[in-house]
């Protein structure tokens, strides 16, 4: 078992290593044209010397003709594809070395996005669980609402995001609330669908047992249905929080928000600050990984306490 674990770690490290190598290799042809243009402006000899001639040449040919430029492709200010260490440096500078109150600190921007995500996630999950309880207990709601909740999973409802931002802005609501609304409705439907499945997961035998105890329907809910739904709840919470984060990021795009990871992405793409885009992207990835990981830990400890862990 132990050697299996070590082998898995080796395998993951190898794959990550290969990805990094590939990334470095890819940055050379991606950036070579920009580098050669810079060299030409600086008065250095490049081959071929005219930008017009270089434009239609393949990147690989240019790399072979100008091997001395390879180093520079990993050090550009605004590369088409920044090298991994550039992104890592930018991440380090904007998280550790900047004060967290600074407008250039990624921690500040992450916090702006995270707070909207968490608020929306809490609202969406709460309402989702309530609706799921309603659906399980009321035949009418099951028949009329549930099909729509399922259909909503096939619709790109995130397209509503720009409109929600602008409409709420026009009635005087701005800041964290509009983004939280988007996060809330994106996490709402997965939680409803998953939770209904979970609350229905006890089989007929278990329900019959409670009936022989003459348990009331609320006792049945608290003592059987709710505990049985926990694994399903956590699965949909993980989907929901990832969706919430995407919602908060997309919610920052349309108004040209000044703070938040989405705003960093947009500003980066306006001004061609690729390193900034990549570092914002990685910050979002790390945030998502932390949130999902945290839920996973809660899940494991809750299920263990309930004796449901495998």
């Amino acid at each position, binding site marked *: 078992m132990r050697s299996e674990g070590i*082998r*898995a770690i*080796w*395998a*993951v*490290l*190898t*794959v*990550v290593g290969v*990805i990094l190598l590939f990334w470095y290799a890819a940055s050379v042809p991606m950036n070579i044209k920009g580098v050669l243009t810079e060299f030409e402006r600086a008065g250095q000899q490049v081959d071929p010397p005219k930008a017009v001639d270089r434009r239609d040449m393949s990147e690989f040919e240019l790399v072979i003709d100008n091997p001395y430029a390879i180093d520079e492709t990993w050090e550009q200010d605004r590369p*088409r*594809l920044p090298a991994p260490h550039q992104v890592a440096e930018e991440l380090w500078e904007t998280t550790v070395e900047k004060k967290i109150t600074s407008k250039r600190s990624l921690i500040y921007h992450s916090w702006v996005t995270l707070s909207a995500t968490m608020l929306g996630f809490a609202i969406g999950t709460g309402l989702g669980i309530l609706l799921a309880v309603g659906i399980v207990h009321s*035949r*009418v709601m*099951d*028949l*009329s*609402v*549930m*099909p*729509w909740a399922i*259909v909503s*999973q*096939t*619709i*790109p409802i*995130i*397209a*509503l995001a*720009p*409109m929600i*931002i*602008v*409409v709420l802005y*026009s*009635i005087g609501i701005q800041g964290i609330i509009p983004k939280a609304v988007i996060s809330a409705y994106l996490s709402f439907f997965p939680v409803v669908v998953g939770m209904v499945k979970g609350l229905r997961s006890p089989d007929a035998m278990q329900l019959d047992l409670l009936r022989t105890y003459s348990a009331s329907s609320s006792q049945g809910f608290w003592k059987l249905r709710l505990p049985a739904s926990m694994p399903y709840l956590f699965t949909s919470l*993980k989907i929901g929080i*990832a969706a919430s*984060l*995407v919602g908060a*990021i*997309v919610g920052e*795009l*349309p108004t040209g928000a000044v703070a938040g*990871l989405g705003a960093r*992405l*947009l500003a*980066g*793409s306006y001004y*061609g600050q*690729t390193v900034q*885009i*990549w570092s*914002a*992207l990685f910050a*979002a*990835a790390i945030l*998502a*990984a932390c949130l*999902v990981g945290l839920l996973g830990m809660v899940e494991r400890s809750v299920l263990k306490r309930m004796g449901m862990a495998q």
Partner: protein
Amino acid sequence: MILVLGAVLLWLFGWWLNSRLASGPQANSRLVRFLAPLIFGLTIIGIWELFVRGLNVPLVILPAPSVIAVRFAGSLPILWVDFVQTIIKGALSGYIIGCFSAFLMAIAVDRWDFLRLGLLPVGNFVAALPIVGTAPILVMWFGFDWHSKAAVVVVMVFFPMLVNTVAGLREATVMQRDLMETYAATYWQSFLKLRLPAAMPFVFNGLKISTTLALIGAIVAEFFGSPTLGMGFRISTSVGQLSLDMVWAEIVVAALAGTAFYGLVAMIEKAVTFWHPSQRG
């Protein structure tokens, strides 16, 4: 005020109708299962219409469904052009490329255990990330036209599809594999006749998840820059012009396209995995 009252009455009537249907003798029939959500949906639209008219909600906050319907019918050519740009060119081509390459990758991952150990955790990790964030980068690389949208879609659908297919290819039991071995089946024979069919329910699960992701990717990527057509472009510019009826018309298109796309994949699934217990019922 009368209209608002009418909305409340309509709500009560719709609820009463559905309660009757749900507790009636036909409650489990297909007809009721079809009618109840329909009545619910129509009631919501009716209430929406009455409230917007009754309270004089301005167009820039919430247009009435009738206004949206008129707009929808009146701008069919624009909607069609946007649909072709975003759904057919962007989402569909990215979906096909992404799902197909993930499928091939999954076969390789399944074949070599080392790849499975290494790539699957990475794939699981990436599948949970906010991948739409790659949109500005890909727009920068592939230009404003649909190629960059297709690229975003490829990245978005790749990992869910990969993870599902790999899980599916491991679905055949040891007993079944042993049986193939006793038949002296080669790797590819056992792959084509046993493991691939057994993987189909998982493959289709991945394909179904990917339909929604494809539309999300194609639409959101247009928020980062696009030529002057496309659904995401139309939504963001119409929001800017405060013509919300157009935004809603696009959202109706997105909803119809999403449901149809999913429905199509589900129909193919039904035809391919007719043997699976979930399709027999």
